[in-house]
């Protein structure tokens, strides 16, 4: 199929897009939540892949090859945007603050994991991940979010295993510190003392 696509066969290219769109979308979705941004990134991935088809020598799967292109493309897009604002309690919506307050008040339970709560949590996660560098965000998402191993992340990204560990360590630290600040503001809002009591 790659050979046919190299010969600029539109139908072959269309088949590549059809077959691997879900995979490319799932990679792009690690970096972006808005559908328009995910689609823009995915489109750029396929156009880039087509222009680089000659570099695909058939070693490894096409899915793995496209995953690497998608990962690097999304990292480049995020690096170009350079927006990593510090997250404060004032930046959060009411729903997000309420979600955090529930965590502090220990009222959250499996019964509260409605679709709406999960969406609020995912929104809040996106805000939190947005404070990290693109590379740190990727390492944390893959290892802590998707249970990927260090060697799997190294293969996807082309980084050394040491670099993966350092990035994940740094990302966890930054995410925890950002969350501590938000929870501190939440405690003050709820009138809780440092032990969590009123």
């Amino acid at each position, binding site marked *: 199929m790659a050979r046919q696509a190299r010969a600029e066969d539109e139908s072959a290219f269309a088949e590549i*897009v059809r077959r691997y769109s879900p995979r490319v979308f799932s990679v792009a979705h690690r970096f972006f939540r808005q559908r328009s941004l995910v689609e823009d990134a*995915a489109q750029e991935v396929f156009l880039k892949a087509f222009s680089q088809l000659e570099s695909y020598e058939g070693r490894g799967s096409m899915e793995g090859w496209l995953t690497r292109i998608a990962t690097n493309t999304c990292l480049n897009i995020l690096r170009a945007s350079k927006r990593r604002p510090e997250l404060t309690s004032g930046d959060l919506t009411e729903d997000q603050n309420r979600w955090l307050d529930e965590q502090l008040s220990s009222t959250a339970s499996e019964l509260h994991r409605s679709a709406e709560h999960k969406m609020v949590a995912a929104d809040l996660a996106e805000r939190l991940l947005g404070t990290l560098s693109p590379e740190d965000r990727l390492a944390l998402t893959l290892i802590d979010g998707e249970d990927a191993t260090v060697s799997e992340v190294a293969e996807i990204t082309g980084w050394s295993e040491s670099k993966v560990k350092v990035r994940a360590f740094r990302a966890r630290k930054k*995410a925890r510190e950002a969350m501590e600040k938000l929870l501190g503001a939440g405690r003050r809002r709820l009138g809780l003392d440092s032990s969590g009591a009123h």
Partner: protein
Amino acid sequence: MREMHIIEILEKGPLASLTESEVGAINSHAETCTECRQAYEAAQISALLIRERATETMEPSPFFQTRVLAAWREQQAGDNVPAFWRLWKTAGALFASMAVTTAALAVFSFVAPGSETPDAGVAVSPYSEEAVVLGQNQGDDQLDYEQVLSAIYADDEVK
């Protein structure tokens, strides 16, 4: 257990990978150390959020393939146009604005009315504004500085 050791345990790997003994050590330490308890709480919530975010999925819309193919065709068409023609098309607006600017400058330079010159036959006082501007107050009858002062003081004495 030292405070920093607790923090290091929290950050060395995903919380889900902590052993039972590590979790036990953290919990027992957190009972007596507020800072570590808050750090552990923050790490747990942060891990929960990241996991929630990772479980979200997004499927391509039915129109995505159409969109990509359209972009691909446009890119192919662009690659087939000679580079000079592409440059010409993009530079067209620049050339047009330069031509308009040049035409406007030419109109203002050659078509605008010229200024009037004074009639040579009109008598002009040597000390009038016109005389000064036209440089016509040079001559043998021009008073020097001392003569002007004398004239002024002579007027004062008469008064």
